[in-house]
């Protein structure tokens, strides 16, 4: 095979740690990928400087979705924060409900009944499935394997039907409330859920055949978009992205919350840290969630107290204090830092999602020297969710 020495004369030189890019030299072109682009997840933009088809520099631009939720919540009573906070991560709203409820309960000293904890665990795993059923085949979608996404959307819709049955809502559920949850399982729910889980089992095999046994997919994902081990600490990489690099970080195992310590599961840990491995980790997560839902259904009691007594929520003053509550979202560690001052309003609520670290500086670093056709698959492989960067 012939090997060509790459001509580097067109690439910019570095001076004092900064690249010297002279756009007038006609060696470089600036391309905006986003904010409205099929290769972008959500509303954000990548300002790419390319030389030929190689990315020389990348800058992430966010702010297209900034709605000032954290500021709004400072002027709302605790119960009024729930409809706001769920919009901070649209595809997976339940994690926000849980984090906010857990923070309020921790600061107010409320003990949640066991039955409510089981139901919360169930809802969080269902929410994980809803996002993964679209997210896992979505990786194939970035390289024109669109049919996996269509299959995923179908199965996801069946899971959304179960959400509707349980909570009354399809996208935003408002099921988790301070002190517990809003309702018990409807009659016959477990049977209908099992039918959906069987469909997901079939879907998992289909996706394995479609994506992970596909030569094109392998060629375009193996060895591409590698997160180096030393970046894990510097950029605080968490969840599936860290697990793909061989570092087992899973909040469900490390800091068991709700009923996760009563469930038997192992998180899949990869080695190569490329797009393929990250995708594979999420595919395994999908199966772990299905297995967990089956365990929850078998282990949870049929009846029980679902909500602890709370004061009148409209006049609820929470003592001065601060807390940090975390959970494992489909993208990794997700947490709320809440500070209260003894009034009926929170003094500060700050959300930290995994995209905040991965989609800004880490993505900018990863994209240097990448081929322009790999940009969207690299971004999707980090499972970026722009609303949680902007809040």
């Amino acid at each position, binding site marked *: 095979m012939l090997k060509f020495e790459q001509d580097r004369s067109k690439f910019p030189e570095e001076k004092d740690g900064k690249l010297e890019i002279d756009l007038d030299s006609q060696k470089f072109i600036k391309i905006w990928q986003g904010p409205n682009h099929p290769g972008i997840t959500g509303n954000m933009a990548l300002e790419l400087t390319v030389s030929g088809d190689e990315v020389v520099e990348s800058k992430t631009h*966010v*702010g297209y979705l*900034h709605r*000032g939720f*954290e*500021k*709004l919540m*400072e*002027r709302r009573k605790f119960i009024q924060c729930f409809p706001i906070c769920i919009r901070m991560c649209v595809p997976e709203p339940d994690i926000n409900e849980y984090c906010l409820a857990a923070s309020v309960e*921790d600061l107010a000293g409320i003990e949640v009944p066991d039955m409510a904890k089981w139901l919360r665990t169930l809802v969080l795993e269902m929410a994980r499935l809803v996002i993964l059923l679209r997210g896992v085949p979505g990786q194939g979608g970035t390289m024109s394997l669109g049919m996996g996404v269509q299959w995923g959307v179908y199965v996801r819709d069946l899971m959304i039907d179960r959400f509707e049955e349980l909570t009354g809502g399809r996208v935003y559920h408002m099921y988790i409330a301070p002190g517990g949850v809003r309702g018990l399982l409807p009659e016959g729910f477990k049977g209908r859920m099992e039918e959906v889980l069987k469909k997901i089992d079939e879907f998992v095999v289909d996706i394995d055949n479609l994506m992970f046994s596909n030569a094109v997919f392998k060629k375009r994902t193996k060895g591409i978009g590698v997160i180096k081990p030393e970046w894990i*600490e*510097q*950029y*605080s990489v*968490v969840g599936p992205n860290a697990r793909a690099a061989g570092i087992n*970080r899973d909040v469900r195992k*490390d*800091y068991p919350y709700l009923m996760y310590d009563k469930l038997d599961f192992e998180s899949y840990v990869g080695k190569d840290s490329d797009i393929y491995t990250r995708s594979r980790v999420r595919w395994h997560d999908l199966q772990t969630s299905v297995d967990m839902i089956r365990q929850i259904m078998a282990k949870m009691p049929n009846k029980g107290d679902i909500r602890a007594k709370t004061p009148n929520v409209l006049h609820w003053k929470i003592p001065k*204090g*601060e*807390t*940090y509550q*975390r959970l494992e979202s489909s993208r990794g*560690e997700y*947490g709320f*830092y809440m*500070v209260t001052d003894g009034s009926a309003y929170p*003094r*500060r609520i*700050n959300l*930290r999602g995994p995209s*905040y*670290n991965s989609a*800004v*500086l*880490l993505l900018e670093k990863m994209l240097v020297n990448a081929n322009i056709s790999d940009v969207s698959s690299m971004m999707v492989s980090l499972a970026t969710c722009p609303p949680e960067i*902007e809040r």
Partner: protein
Amino acid sequence: MENIIKSLEEKFNISEVIKKSDNLNILTVDKKLAMSLIIYLKEIEKFSHLVMLSAVDWLEDGKFQLSYILNNPEKKIDLIIRVFISREKPEMESIHKIWVHAATDQRELKEMYGIEFPESPRLNDDFLLEGWDNIPPMRRDFDTLKYSEETFFPRPGRQTYETKEYMKEKMYPDEKNSKNKKGLKDA
């Protein structure tokens, strides 16, 4: 965890320790010693994961609170390091050399609270806001309602109407003059 807190209390001038749970403690430290405490925790006590860097505005005390949430992934424990800085001239040393991604946090805090972190990369680049010319919006003295009233109202197309009257006027413009002729009843 208790051993770590004890050794920290001996080495650094820690003014307050709040024990939240077995694996979460809150420490308050002087601004001058904060950096050395953070480096000590990272290098010696292996708190290698910076969960977040946040700020709280205590307007009534004239102070900003910076909260560094650090996590030790091996021992599975968390520490919240609180540092109070003056509200009049808010400035803090940058930690981007310890954790690269802290530069994003600091860029956001500069924009939202006006806190300076000298030497932090791209600190003055717009992060979420574009062409913002008011006081930093996350400060407690920034009035969102007043701002939106000044900025967004009144503007053509943003008037509010009494729905019933407005629709009546739109649908039956002649009704006022020839109400009985058309035989329409009041809605």
